[in-house]
Each structure stands twice: as C-alpha cells, then as structure tokens.
C-alpha cells in the first residue's frame, strides 16, 4: 500500500470513530432525556389529579351551602347525586363537564357512620398506560337526615373521601 492511500484510510477511520462516538453520545442523551420525560409526565399526571380534585372541591355543583354561605371541604350528598344523574341522562351536560374534568373518575366514598360510595363523574379511556388517584378527606352532608345539624346546616354530617382518578 502506498503512503497516500494509507493517509486516506487513516482519515476515513478517524471519521468512523468520530461518528461512532457521536452516535453513542446521542443514544445516551436520548436515553436520559426519555427518562426525564417519563418523570415529567408522571408529575403532570399527579398535578392534573390535584387540579381536578381542587376544582371539584370548589364546584358549586357539589359544595355545601346555606344561602350562599359556602362550607369548605364539604360535599352535599343531594347535589352529588343530582349531578351524577344529570351526567348519566344529559349528553350535553356530559360534554360540557368533559371540558373541565376530561378523562377522569370522581367519586365520594363515605366511610362513617356507614360505608357508601357514589360516582359523580366517570370517563375512562379505552386504553391507558397508568392511572393516578388523589384522595381528599371531606364532610359528606346529608340534608335529608332530620333532627340534627351539620356544622351550620340542617341535616347530618358524615365523613368520607373525595377520590379523583386520572388516566394517561
């Protein structure tokens, strides 16, 4: 082999090694970036759950009130049941609330004095990779229970949890 040809092969080999190292570097970078993206999407899912839970807690459709005086962290059982039947019977209402809650499941689980659970909103995607649940302790107000008071409201207070599940 002549000296010039040797020089050429040497230059090509340098380039091959350079691009090989570049490709390895890019693969490592993409791997790390991918892991970061998964973590970010997990965080985003958790945040979405919290956001929806917070929204649900401030929704007048669910909140307990007397003459517009709002009771914080309290779900009115009658309103929740009315909303649940509205969403199951009215497609326009279902579409309307989808803009707020999107693909999620919102339910109230009463744990004391009796155990009971009612689903307020449910829109589960056909396929999802994972779901995330957010739990918020709430008072479940029953206005039909006679003879007692719940905070400042006529009726009875029960204890429960608002559960919001979001999907990805």
């Amino acid at each position: 082999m002549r000296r010039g040809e040797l020089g050429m092969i040497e230059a090509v080999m340098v380039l091959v090694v350079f691009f090989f190292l570049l490709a390895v570097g890019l693969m490592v970078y993409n791997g790390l970036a991918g892991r970061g993206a998964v973590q970010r999407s997990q965080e985003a899912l958790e945040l979405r759950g919290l956001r929806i839970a917070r929204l649900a807690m401030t929704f007048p459709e669910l909140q307990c009130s007397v003459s517009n005086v709002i009771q914080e962290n309290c779900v009115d059982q009658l309103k929740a049941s009315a909303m649940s039947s509205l969403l199951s019977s009215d497609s326009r209402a279902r579409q309307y609330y989808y803009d707020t809650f999107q693909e999620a499941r919102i339910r109230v689980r009463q744990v004391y004095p009796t155990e009971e659970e009612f689903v307020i909103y449910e829109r589960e995607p056909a396929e999802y990779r994972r779901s995330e649940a957010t739990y918020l302790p709430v008072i479940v107000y029953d206005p039909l229970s006679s003879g007692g008071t719940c905070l400042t409201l006529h009726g009875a207070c029960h204890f429960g949890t608002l559960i919001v599940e979001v999907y990805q």
Partner: protein
Amino acid sequence: MRRAQVQVQFTWIFSLFAGALILLFFITFILRQKDVSERGLSAEVSAKLDAVLTLAQSSLQTSNNVTIPGDLGFDCTGFVYGGARRPYGNALVFAPGLIQGKLLITYADGWDVPYRASNLLYLTSPRVRYIFLNNSETVHSLFEAMPDAATKQSVEWNITLMASIMPRNDDYVRIILGASSSTLPSYLPGLDALSPEEVGVLGVSRSVSETDAFTVTFYTRNPGAPVMYSPGEVFGVVGEEMALAAVYSSAELFNCTYSRALDHLEHITAVYYQRSRDLLASYRGPGTCAQLYGAAGSSLSAIRREAQRPPTLMSAEAIAANMTALADANQRLKLFSCPTVY
C-alpha cells in the same frame, strides 16, 4: 495530471465535505434543541400561569398582581403565551384580547343567581385604562366594584370635564357609561386621535323593571364618521358581576364567554332543580315547606329554560324575576327551619 496531484485534491475535497457534514450536524442539533427548549419553557410558563389562574379563581373578592413573563393573548376557551395555547376548561375568564406588559391584575367574584352559579375571573393590566362616565347609579356601582389595583377613574357627566380626558400611554382605553344612544359621548374630543383598536365604549344600564337584569352595549368606533361611536353588539345579562365582566372584555370574548356561562347556568340549575325535588319528595314536615319547595322548583325550571335562550334583555329579565322568587322561597324555608334549596 499526475496521480499524486489528484490524491491531494481528493483529500481536500474529502476534508471539506466531512467538515461541512459535521458542522451541519451540530447546527441542526443546536437549532432543534433551541426549539425544544423554547417550547418546553412556553409550556412550563403556561402551566404555571394556569395554576395561578386556577388559584385566583377560587380566591373571591381578592385582587392579586401577578408578574407575567410577556404578552398574554386570550380567547374564549384558553390563553396563549409564546405560541403555546392552554385551554382553561370551563373557567369563565373575562379579559381584553391581549394583555401586554409584565403585570397581570386578577380579581374573582361569585356569580349568584341567587345560588352560586360559578366563579368569574376578571383579568386586566395596569396599561388598560377604564374611564367611568358617572351618569348613573349602575356606572358608579361598577366603578366601586372594580379593584383599586386597576387603572380606573371616575369622571362626572360634565362636558368640560369629559373634554379634558386625554390619551396617555395606555394600551387600551375603555369608556363606561350609563347606556342610551342619546348620551353617547361625542364629547370626548381628546380621544379622537386614538384608533378603534385603542379605545372602546361600553354602555351599561339596569333593566327598567329594577330587577338584577342589565343591558350591555358594545359601541364600535367609526373614525371620521359624523357619529363617532355606533351601537354594536347588545346583550341582556344577569347580575352586576356579569355586567362588570363586560367592562373587562372585548365584545367577541364576552359574547362567547357569556354563552358558556349560560350553558353552565343551565346545568347547575338542573342540579338545584333535582335537589329541590328530592327535598320535596322526602320532606315530612309542615305543608308550608313543601309548598315552598314546589315554588322553588318552578323558579328553577323557569331559570333553566331561559338559560337555553339567546341572551336578550327579555330572557335576562325573566331569569332575574325568577331569581327574586327563588330567593324569597329560600329565605322563607330558612325561617321555617327547613333545609334550604341553596
């Protein structure tokens, strides 16, 4: 040409080609990373702003100054920052189409009809100036309802005083007056130099039936025409909070957001209607309360029906009249120690 010479030329061409390829690779990589990073930053800022707006929406009757990184554009269902659009679901946000500068003023209030239908979020900037021409009780009341952090001023309905209103370095000037076309300010010569994009007039008047219904009229500017402002879109709205919402919005944004507010009113009224029926069905006490639940149910049904109609003054008045009847029934339920409807 000798073989050695050809080889030297080939080496040079080969080096140039390889160098250009490497350079191209790095330039593409850097540009792509820059684009990804900018989009990521816009999305991150939008997410933070969204969180701020969600929080502001639940802090009623509290004004907050929020520092923003740049101009924010608003439409009916979302906001845009740096090319990234973020929808705000069913939140009812009233704002000018564009907020420029570094400061955003947020203020939220409940929309009570008479039950809480929704929370309204008002957004503006110190660079938007509100001039209330004080020719009615309603205008005065709206001036008082607007937070002090906003750039607002009240001017008496006096030709000399109105003529002294001059443009400042504002992005936009909104004039609010007790509406009636005969009282339209052709007396604002100081603002003649402003373009239709820089100034707008809103007329607000309470219904003659003295209920909680209002007419809001967005006047459009006709530069060079004998009548400087002519009535544009007119809406019948329910509640002073909604009349205040019109002060903050452009006609287009108000039209769309108020329609969404009526959609929400329809659905939440269905919830209250069902609740009143459940209360009536299970009530075993004195007959007076049962009658009151029945009356409340009729009012709620009427409100729901009217909320489905276009936003005219007639439908707003019908809603307002039923609001009064419902508030009365609710008050009496409270007096009789029965569970209230709202």
